[in-house]
């Protein structure tokens, strides 16, 4: 069996290869989506941490400036 015959799939090439193609797309999407989601979640938590640190620093500063006056 040669390759062109293989890709021809006995005349059913469109149906067979579309099926396999769609499957590949769906599987890849299922792998990519959670990875992207993970990145988003981590970025979000990092932002939250940073924001909390800034707020903490601000409140300390306020407290300090209050003391010196």
């Amino acid at each position, binding site marked *: 069996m040669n390759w062109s015959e293989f890709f021809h799939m*006995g005349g059913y090439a469109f149906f*067979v290869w579309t*099926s396999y193609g*769609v499957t590949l797309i769906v599987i890849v999407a*299922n792998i990519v989506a*959670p990875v992207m989601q993970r990145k988003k*979640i*981590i970025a979000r938590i990092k932002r939250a*941490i940073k924001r909390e640190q800034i707020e903490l620093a601000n409140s300390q500063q306020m407290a300090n400036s209050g003391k010196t006056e």
Partner: protein
Amino acid sequence: MWKWIQRFSSPKYFYSMSAPLITWFSIAALLTGLYGLYLGLFVAPPDYQQGESYRIIFIHVPAAWMSLFIYMVMAVSAAIGIIWQIRLADMVAAASAPIGASFAFLALVTGALWGKPMWGAYWVWDARLTSELILLFLYLGYMALQSAIEDQRSADKASGLLAIVGVVNIPIIHYSVEWWNTLHQGATVAKFDKPSMHIDMLIPLLLMAVAFKLLYAALVLVRARNEALYRDRNRRWVRELIEKL
């Protein structure tokens, strides 16, 4: 025993233990899948009735099996989450839904693509395709409910209950659709019943089914890890973990 379960089902423990598992599951899924594809596309002989078009079976049937299997996993873990208040189970249920929906979608698309050469139309109201479509709707309902409720815990419980109700309904739906279909048999073009399958076709089919299961195992772990991170985003273990990254 209870302590043991508590320890192993804590999101923190799960998060650290699941990383190597994902690697192993992915590798195993890839190897089984490639071998299954090789056997299915190159080794298995063409079907005497359907020619080469039957090769869609190697993804269509495993995808359909998976969609049902994942719904069961989802409902069982949702039940565990509701009854024993184990958060990890809720995460697994929530993580399973989009994967299950993808497999249901795949089963439908490949079924339609297989139906065109066999039945002469992309869509006929065949019992299995119709059941699969309803299963997809059940998944979509679960996901819609899950995302509509803001409070995470009640979202889990509410959608979990829906999954359980769905599981009770699936046999009834399946039976009634099957029955409905036999009544309207005239509408569908001759259902080709499969005589005992040739062993060279059966082995790749089973291999692909195993590959899909392993793929699901890897994907559900990845998603459940995301859920763990997100839901525990204000807890110390996540904070420490993120700061180390």
